[in-house]
């Protein structure tokens, strides 16, 4: 790689070294080991981090990582990708608003409908849903009839979610002018979500790998989070999601994610394009 005429070395990272780094990270941060993630992804991220740290080789980086809590945090942050947008894949949100939510509401009459956004990043997804609910049912009913829980492993991104302050581009690109007008107020260049929508969403730090902690839910959005996990972990997580969903409960995956074959016995496809599945 050539940068301003200077040659930047690509550090070579062997499997053992990667393992050593991840074990160190798990020990020091108390987070679970990152072995559930796709190795190629993790490796790319670690290599990128090593390069940016200015360390000349992996050994040096390991020492640095051991000494510097800041670097550990940076590595953890760089291990998760937080790309998200309001109303990412707009057609999905249309389908949710026009088909899925009305059907679910009818089914769960008499008790609040529980929605769970898994891997919520900085809140773009759960807030988009909250906006839909306010639009469809009004603030009052939305607050009484729905419970939106949003979880993520990364505390920093959750803190951002609690702030609910977003850049116009690209985060708010999918928000129509009317919605922007109605639900956001401008604050020196950024946009702040109105409290009425904000209060509909509860955030909680949670690791998707700890399947025993899963809450009950009628609708689970688990989009663009499983892509970072390897197949066995994906299957484990999806099995656990099937366990907490009631019969005919809805699961939504990301647009480039697919239902692994062994799980098709537990989930029926409702909409292959939008990746909407129902618990068999």
């Amino acid at each position, binding site marked *: 790689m050539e940068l301003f*005429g200077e040659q930047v070395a690509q550090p070579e990272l062997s499997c053992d070294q990667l393992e050593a780094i991840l074990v160190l990270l798990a020990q020091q941060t108390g987070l679970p080991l990152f072995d559930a993630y*796709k190795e*190629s*992804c993790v490796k*790319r*991220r670690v290599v*990128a981090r090593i390069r940016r740290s200015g360390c000349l080789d992996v050994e040096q980086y390991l020492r640095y990582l051991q000494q510097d809590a800041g670097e550990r945090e940076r590595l953890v942050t760089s291990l998760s*990708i*937080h*790309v998200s947008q309001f109303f990412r*894949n707009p057609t999905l949100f249309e389908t949710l608003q026009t088909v899925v939510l009305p059907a679910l509401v009818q089914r769960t009459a008499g008790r609040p409908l529980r929605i769970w956004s898994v891997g919520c990043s900085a809140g773009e997804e759960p807030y988009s849903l909250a906006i839909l609910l306010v639009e469809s049912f009004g603030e009052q009913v939305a607050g009484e009839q729905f419970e939106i829980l949003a979880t993520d492993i990364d505390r920093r991104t959750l803190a951002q979610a609690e702030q609910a302050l977003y850049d116009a581009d*690209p985060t708010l690109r999918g928000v129509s002018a009317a919605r922007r007008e109605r639900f956001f107020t401008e604050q020196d260049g950024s946009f702040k979500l109105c409290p009425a929508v904000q209060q509909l969403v509860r955030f909680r730090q949670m690791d998707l790998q700890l399947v025993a902690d899963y809450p009950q839910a009628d609708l689970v959005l688990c989009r*663009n989070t*499983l*892509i*970072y996990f390897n*197949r066995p972990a994906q299957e484990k997580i999806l099995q656990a999601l099937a366990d907490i969903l009631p019969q005919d409960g809805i699961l939504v995956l*990301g*647009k*480039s*994610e*697919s*239902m*692994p*074959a062994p799980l*098709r016995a537990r989930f029926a*496809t409702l909409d*292959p*394009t939008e*990746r909407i599945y129902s618990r068999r």
Partner: protein
Amino acid sequence: MRVPLGYKFILGFVAVVAVVAFAPPVVSALGYSPGVTQFLTIVVALTVGLIMGWLFSRRFARNISMLTESAHEVSQGDLSCDIQLPPTSMPDETHELTAAINQMIQNLRDLVGHIRGSSAKLAGASKEINGTAVEISASTEEVARAIEQISHGAETQAELVERSSRIIKETAISIELIASRARESSRCARETSQTAQRGSDLAGDALLLMKDFFERIETLSARFDQLNTRLQRVGKVADFIGEVARQTNLLALNASIEAVRAGEYGKGFAVVADEVRKLADSTSHSAGEITDLIVTLRDESQKVHESLLESSRTIREGKKNVDITAGAFAEIIASVQETERRANSIADLSQMQLESSGKMVHAVDEIAKVADDNAAATEEVSAATEEQLAAMQDMALATRELTQLADELERLVRRFTLEEPVELVETA
């Protein structure tokens, strides 16, 4: 010729001292009173000293003030002009200072020019990188959409494969069912065929028995005929006996009449004749009974014969039925055997079908695996794309900051005015 400032001062001082030394004789030569002469001497010395001092310091002060002014301008950020001292035949340190300051200004000018050029280039480059990052973001998003499309294909494929696999498995199950039913019906057919065979055998036996029976009826009929003729013959004998008895009776009657005629001598004979007549009577009577018996016997045997014939007729009717039954059994056996054959071939066929559906399930599983792999690979690409998107967003952010930095730098160095357009220095 360079004359250092110190020398210039010494020179001036020597000149003033010389004037003070040489003035009194000159002034006294004018012939004024000594008081006046003394006064004049002082005045002349002072005047000459002042003139010489002014002459010396004027140039120096002017040079210094020019230098001060220039330094002030530089401190204000104006690097546009060099200091130009008036030409002199005797340059001193001020000229050297001027040259040094000019050099400094020139260096500053170069430096600022450099910085200005570099910051402009930096701003340009970072804007360009920002633009590129945004572009890459856009194309990455496009890639992401394409991947979503591919993934949709993969998902649909997986879905279809899953469905066809289910259908094939269901079909396999029903084929298995068919095979087992076919085997069952083949077994039933075989059993039926065996039963029918037994029935047919029984019918055959019955026919044989009937044939036997008819033959016996036939001999029986012949025997009856024989019996009849014999009975007739017996009847005739009985009739003859009756006739004989009647004639005997008549003869006995005649004899008894003769005995009566013979009187006392015929008395014994009359008894015998009477006995004979009695015997003839009972014989006749017995012969009559025999004839009656024979008639009854004939009637009875006739009846037996008739009922024999009757049952023979009935049995003949029955034989027809048994014949039909035997035929039906044969037909049943034939069709049941056909059924068995067909059921067997169905079983064989469905066995084959079962095997090929097993192969199909295998193939579909293989396809499913490929589809699954495809989906996984697409996911992987998607993860990488997402990563790239994140990196590009970071980069866009970083370059935006870089642009701001460059602008800031540019604003800072803009305080310096450079007169001539600065030639940009390449940063290599």
